[in-house]
């Protein structure tokens, strides 16, 4: 049962520490191939799944806080929140139709609302961790403001299990928008981005700006009256399959993403990259591109040119540019501070620095 599950997880990590045997911490495993971790490597060691450590610990809608065990499926959490007309505003992707709350924090993947709503770390209020010594630690809490001690719970966002096993997460949740509407703009990406900037630099109900190669896609959300006003003023054409489009974009589903050679490019907002036209799905108002059909060397050049970063959603999950020496050094030191025997997720590149 849940409590036994926590203590058995602690025992497993503690034993790994004592015996210097590696453990591979996973949730549902839905994002492994996306980050090039599909094949357990030689350093993987014992598989440690959080799936049985699941369930909502506490949720009071008027607090805007939910605390859940890490093995809880995102789909289940979202159902609980939806009953109270609330949601995770950063729209975490569920790849292959699955995903856990622990995996969400460990990978820090956020959906199309990212430029407006913020990322996973912006909604983390607290987290508990079994560090690499098997010690169970609580950081942060269940309140909106908390500056006691170092902010370890946010440090866990994007840590890929390299600092230990996340056992529970406290998240800020927000009301769902009263309604959502979708529009389609027949413009090439460059013109679309230029036009859309005005909706970012002034307050507007826009909550998504994407381009599928053919159409610019606009999503707005909020109170009906403001959405009406936006629709009247900007006279955009309604997008009949908007709901399906944004759902697929959030979860990386659909024909575009059915490929074995997907890349992800992160660049500053509004970056128009003409070389990517015809090869990419633009999201995050031009700050995130999903790319296929271009040579690695060309992608590296584009990442350099636009001062961005790149990772391969296939193969070994290689990324670019490499971290500077001083940053690598801090990663090594932090890894050792949390996992001194280097046993947690040794296959991930953060552990290998």
């Amino acid at each position, binding site marked *: 049962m849940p409590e036994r599950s926590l203590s058995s997880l602690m025992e497993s990590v503690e034993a790994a520490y004592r015996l210097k045997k590696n453990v591979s911490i996973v949730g549902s495993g839905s994002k492994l191939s996306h980050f090039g971790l599909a094949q357990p490597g030689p350093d993987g060691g014992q598989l440690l799944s959080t799936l049985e450590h699941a369930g909502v610990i506490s949720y009071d809608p008027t607090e805007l806080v939910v605390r859940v065990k890490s093995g809880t499926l995102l789909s289940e959490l979202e159902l609980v929140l939806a009953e109270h007309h609330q949601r995770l505003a950063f729209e975490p992707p569920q790849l292959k139709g699955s995903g856990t709350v622990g995996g969400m924090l460990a990978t820090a993947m956020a959906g199309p609302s990212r430029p407006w709503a913020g990322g996973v770390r912006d909604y983390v209020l607290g987290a508990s961790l079994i560090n690499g010594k098997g010690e169970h630690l609580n950081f942060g809490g269940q*309140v909106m*403001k*908390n500056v006691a001690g170092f902010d370890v719970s946010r440090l866990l966002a994007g*840590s890929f299990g390299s600092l230990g096993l996340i056992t529970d997460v406290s998240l800020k949740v927000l009301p769902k928008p009263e309604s959502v509407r979708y529009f389609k703009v027949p413009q090439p990406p460059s013109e679309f981005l230029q036009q859309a900037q005005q909706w970012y630099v002034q307050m507007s109900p826009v909550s998504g700006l994407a381009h599928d190669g053919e159409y610019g896609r606009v999503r707005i959300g909020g109170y009906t009256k403001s959405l009406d006003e936006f629709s009247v003023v900007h006279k955009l054409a309604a997008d009949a399959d908007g709901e399906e489009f944004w759902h697929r974009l959030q979860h990386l589903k659909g024909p575009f993403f059915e490929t074995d050679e997907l890349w992800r490019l992160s660049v500053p907002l509004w970056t128009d990259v003409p070389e990517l036209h015809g090869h990419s799905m633009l999201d995050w108002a031009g700050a995130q591109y999903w790319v296929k059909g271009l040579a690695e060397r060309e992608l590296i050049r584009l990442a350099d040119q636009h001062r*961005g970063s790149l990772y391969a959603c296939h193969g070994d999950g290689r990324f670019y540019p490499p971290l500077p020496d001083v940053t690598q050094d801090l990663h090594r030191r932090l890894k050792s501070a949390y996992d001194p025997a280097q046993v947690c997720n040794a296959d991930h590149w953060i552990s290998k620095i």
Partner: protein
Amino acid sequence: MTVVNQTPEASRSVWTRERALPLFRNALPESVIVSSPEELKPFECDGLSVYRALPLLVLLPENREQVVTIVNICAQHHIPLVPRGAGTGLSGGALAVEGGVMLTLSRMAKILHIDKQKLIAKVQPGVRNLAISEAVREMGLYYAPDPSSQIACSIGGNVAENAGGVHCLKYGLTVNNVQGLECVLADGRVISIGGECLDAPGLDLLAVLHGSEGMLALVTEVTVRLSPSPPAARTMLVSFAEVGAAAKAVASVIGAGIIPAGLEMMDQLAIRAAEDFAHAGYPRDAAAILLCEVDGLPADVEHETSVLAGLFDKAGATEVRIAKDDAERQTFWAGRKSAFPAVGRISPDYYCMDGTIPRCKLPDVLDGIARLSRQFDLPVANVFHAGDGNLHPLILFDANRKDELERAEAMGGRILALCVELGGTITGEHGVGLEKINQMCVQFSSTEIEQFHATKLAFDERRILNPNKNIPTLARCAEFGAMHVHDGQLPHPDIERF
């Protein structure tokens, strides 16, 4: 097991002013160094003036290179280094340490670059919080976090404390509004973190640096995110005959799916003090008032205002006033913003606390504070950010009367322990600094505290930066005798009790 009970090397500093001065004079222009006791005086405390100590020297670098030079000298000679921004902090985080120097970033105060398409600004750490908003106002933008000291506090200090403010329930804390940092590490190396992109590969170092109270690195450049100014805002002044009813109304606002831009609460003592001081038209007979502000698109603001008016009525409000214009809105806020100085007028001294609790525990915590107030025989005025459960009880006392400061401090400690008991935290936005270091032992277990020390050492293995602040040693916790019971385990089992 990390070594935490050892006296940190840097704190064993044997440096004197006479010995330290030549090291810095040889490497820096004279204008950067403050060394005479008279000139050092303004640096003897931060916003928490009950703690005072003179640094050996104050260094006022004008650029990153000088920061690196200073850090290198300190690292080489094991001289403790206390970073300081504008010195407005309220927890003694920028208090000088014995035998150490102070590095003040106030001269690095240039706004380097504003990008009005990407809504970011690159600024030096000494830039004042409000100066950022002023610089971008004409573009219809502002910088959202607004700590009450925003006219004076600096952005570097905001990062160190993860400063909040009145609007953070809706717009987030400093950590949610900073996209990049350039820092000098304790070994003099420069690191660049984040920047123009919305994410970067690797661990979220940006997150752990926020609120690290100058213990991990020195911030030399900050890339902040700007926000579009809301075209409309409405403020409501809502009165209640009972504190409990006001607290319940707060929960029902959130329950209705509305996230106000600000939701502040004041009790009767605070209301009267503020009214006498600012003449904001506050109802002197009300047991509590709420100040509730909504902002955004005009249609949304109208909608939320009408929903809220109905909701407050139902919650038993004795009066709901909606500011009819911007002038009245400013008047409503003038009372709240002057609450601290107003309380300062009715009492020779006050001690401002900063606990946070889950909103649903507001009635419990207010009962508990009233009980403690009777027990310690000191009045308390409550002013707080009700929307995010962040309390600022002001304990009134007179430092000239025997025992009163000690009683106020003891009572403050009990209030913080109560916050932890109710599922909250000892500090919402002011930081731990030196002030709340004992209460850290209440909130965290010894293994958690050890993990904090290990984190500190990962950044600063010689413990040069702001030593002995923020994270207590386990020995200190044992001495303080805090009883943190964690997962049914005894507190600090590895320490002998005495």
